[in-house]
């Protein structure tokens, strides 16, 4: 059931008895702007750990524990040219607790108090809480680079989106930005989030849809006067392969390759691109897995991933530094092989079955329903389960080859463990 609470504020309830919990997600969506990214990440930390009613972490944790250990989290993410600040709360369905505590109603009350009554006064966030969360976020951002796989992927991202800092930086911002933020400006910015962002509220579970709608209607959301953000980031890149190498002390080198692939979510070539990715490096049956890992024993992981909101394809592999040239060559050969149709129909049929298995399996996760409702609101292209299955089944080998020919290798980032010449 969909309820328009105001212009740009939508409530979607998804009734389901499959799960023993009920989940509520509130998503704030804005156009991705470089200057807002870190602010939104810090906001998510502040909202996750404090509010007027729950001024410290213990008070907040107590409130969650009283709701039989409700799980609460806040986070940020980038999707194409949009940035999302998201609060999620999951509670047990009281039917399975031999309790008559109205947990879903309490959960919505809790979320509303977190969102509309943050911890602060005189138009600024509580200074001590603000300072603590700045420190914590800064430490977290700096530690992320210790994960070498992540670090290499992030460096590739910087190379791929040169000239567009909003796309280059991580969705949780930068440590340097944090030095320029203050508790008053952030409060002001949060007021604009509440007033201008597109808001999606998704409730999944065995709930009274009418009661849920009434509870949210009581908030009195204002109409959004800003236009809906565009769903896709178009960034056609013809650049020919530019390599970049960095040396660090590490045992396993990380190879990341970035390609232009102008195919967008549920647009032209979309379903063929899904099968293409499975064939290239998206599954254990893929060319990369079979040839880089299984046949040549050159890597523990070697896989590809699509970003159909930004039109890019990425390959990542963990390898021995000395094997760089051989691995890059084999990866290139796999793409060429797909372009000229060097794959069997049986394999395509298996890859489709794998995609279908993943799709049907995802229906066993409560989160899938919420995330899909968000994407449908962003792209305005809902597709039924049956249509999705039929579209995947209908993909032909010619269509897969055609997608492979759209792929252009733009950038490579190599995090090498050895100072030897590659």
């Amino acid at each position: 059931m969909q309820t328009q609470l105001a212009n740009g504020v939508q409530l979607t309830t998804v009734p389901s008895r499959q799960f023993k919990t009920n989940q509520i997600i509130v998503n704030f969506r804005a156009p991705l702007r470089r200057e807002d990214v870190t602010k939104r990440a810090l906001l998510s930390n502040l909202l996750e750990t404090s509010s007027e009613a729950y001024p410290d972490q213990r008070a907040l944790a107590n409130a969650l524990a009283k709701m039989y250990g409700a799980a609460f989290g806040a986070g940020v993410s980038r999707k194409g040219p949009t940035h999302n600040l998201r609060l999620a709360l999951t509670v047990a369905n009281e039917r399975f607790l031999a309790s008559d505590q109205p947990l879903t109603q309490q959960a919505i009350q809790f979320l509303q108090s977190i969102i509309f009554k943050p911890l602060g006064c005189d138009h600024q966030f509580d200074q001590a809480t603000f300072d603590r969360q700045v420190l914590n976020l800064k430490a977290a951002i700096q530690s992320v680079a210790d994960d070498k796989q992540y670090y290499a992927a992030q460096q590739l991202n910087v190379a791929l989106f040169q000239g567009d800092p909003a796309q280059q930086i991580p969705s949780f911002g930068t440590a340097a930005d944090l030095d320029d933020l203050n508790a008053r400006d952030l409060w002001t910015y949060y007021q604009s989030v509440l007033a201008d962002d597109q808001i999606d509220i998704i409730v999944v579970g065995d709930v009274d849809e009418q009661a849920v709608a009434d509870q949210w209607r009581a908030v009195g959301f204002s109409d959004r006067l800003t236009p809906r953000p565009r769903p896709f980031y178009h960034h056609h890149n013809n650049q020919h392969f530019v390599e970049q190498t960095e040396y660090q002390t590490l045992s396993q080198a990380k190879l990341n390759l970035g390609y232009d692939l102008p195919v967008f979510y549920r647009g032209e070539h979309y379903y063929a691109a899904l099968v293409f990715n499975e064939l290239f490096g998206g599954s254990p049956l893929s060319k990369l897995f079979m040839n880089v890992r299984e046949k040549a024993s050159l890597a523990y992981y070697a896989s590809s991933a699509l970003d159909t909101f930004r039109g890019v394809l990425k390959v990542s592999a963990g390898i021995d530094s000395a094997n760089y040239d051989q691995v890059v060559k084999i990866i290139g050969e796999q793409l060429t092989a797909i372009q000229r149709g060097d794959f069997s129909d049986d394999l395509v049929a298996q890859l489709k079955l794998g995609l279908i298995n993943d799709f049907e399996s995802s229906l066993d996760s409560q989160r899938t329903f919420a995330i899909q409702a968000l994407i449908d609101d962003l792209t305005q292209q809902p597709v039924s389960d049956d249509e999705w299955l039929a579209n995947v089944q209908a993909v032909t080998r010619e269509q897969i080859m055609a997608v492979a020919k759209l792929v252009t290798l733009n950038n490579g980032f190599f995090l090498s463990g050895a100072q030897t010449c590659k």
Partner: protein
Amino acid sequence: MQIKKYDQFNETLYQAKLANGLTVSLLPKAGFHKTYATFTTNYGSIDNTFVPAGGDELHRYPDGIAHFLEHKMFEKADHDAFQTFGEYGASANAFTSFTKTSYLFSATRRLKDNLTTLLDFVQDPYFTPETVDKEKGIIGQEIEMYNDDPSWRLYFGMIGNLYPNHPLQYDIAGTTDSIAKITADDLYAAYRTFYHPENMTLFVVGKLDPDEVLAWITENQAAKTFADFQPIERKIPATVEDGHDIMPYRSIEMPVSRAKSIVGVKGLTPIKAGTEALKYRATVNVLLEMLFGDTSANYLRLYDQGVIDDTFGYDFELQSGFNFLTFSGESDDPAQFDAAIIDVLENWHASLDGQDALLELVKKEMIGRVVFMSNSLEGIANRYDQRLFGSVTLFDEPGIIQQLTLADVAAVADQLLQSQAISEYQIRPQHEELKKAES
């Protein structure tokens, strides 16, 4: 077939022991699209010294052999089991822990074909010197990948402190040197010793009809012959009960931006298997929540002092034959972090005494979490551990938690939190990295 109903959860568990010794557990989940199956042997990384089936003497095998065997099970003379699962649209995987090796798949369609594939590939070993050698490259890369992971190094650094004379200290995958020594004959010896149905369990959960599935499994197993089961003799060093073997402190340098620290507590008393073990684990988890959980006074105090932050975490590992606690986090001052944790542990009385209201709150939270876990097929199946807990499942836990008293929690604290069982391990940023950050 034994039937156990969990009325509060509206779930039913079906269990049977087949003629060949295999224990089968089936848990249908209404409304689910997927079926998840795990086929598990009670054989893990610590079982590196054992009497091979048919032999009569203890033999020391190379570290990492259980994990190596797991990798090699998928490859057959004329096909790869991954491929067969792929043909049926299933996604398959396997993992090796300290005490277990599990093979698993999840699938939304063709359940019978996938179950048959799972049973057949795990019960049909095929190793040659060539295929064994080839795998060394892949596993070598896996070991290197973990070597670069500071969290993994921190965890194994602590295990090395707590268990310096125990196979637990070795990386589950072994080392590049140890796996170089593994031969096809070693793999066959390990296989024949540990992969007898009597030493294995099959857990299937999700979309399934229990009568139909049990009939398929029974038919598949009846068509195969197995040698008579010979009780397994493995050599696992006993826990040194006064803890004198524990290394109290070690540290290393790695290219990390911030120091990481871990405090460990070794359980010096062995825990009896069965429902008692489940109760012990639940009690320790309640104790940890009361001492360090986000509803505790200690957590807020240490968080506001900046001693701990969102990277702080703790864990209780209870397995057949050993148990230990870990507390880890990032800190600019790891010595201060360790001292603060140890202070709470050694003065646990102060955090527990008179805290009846906190106990009730923590119990409520933990019972709710069982409801959360019951949504996850993987969670239900992976929490099942016959060797340790017997036939009990996730759904038995709320009843146990409900009855815990403050005296129960204090008794466990008294037994577990002993000063001589505490150890520290730190990863400090490399010197040149520090300089770079300062400049």
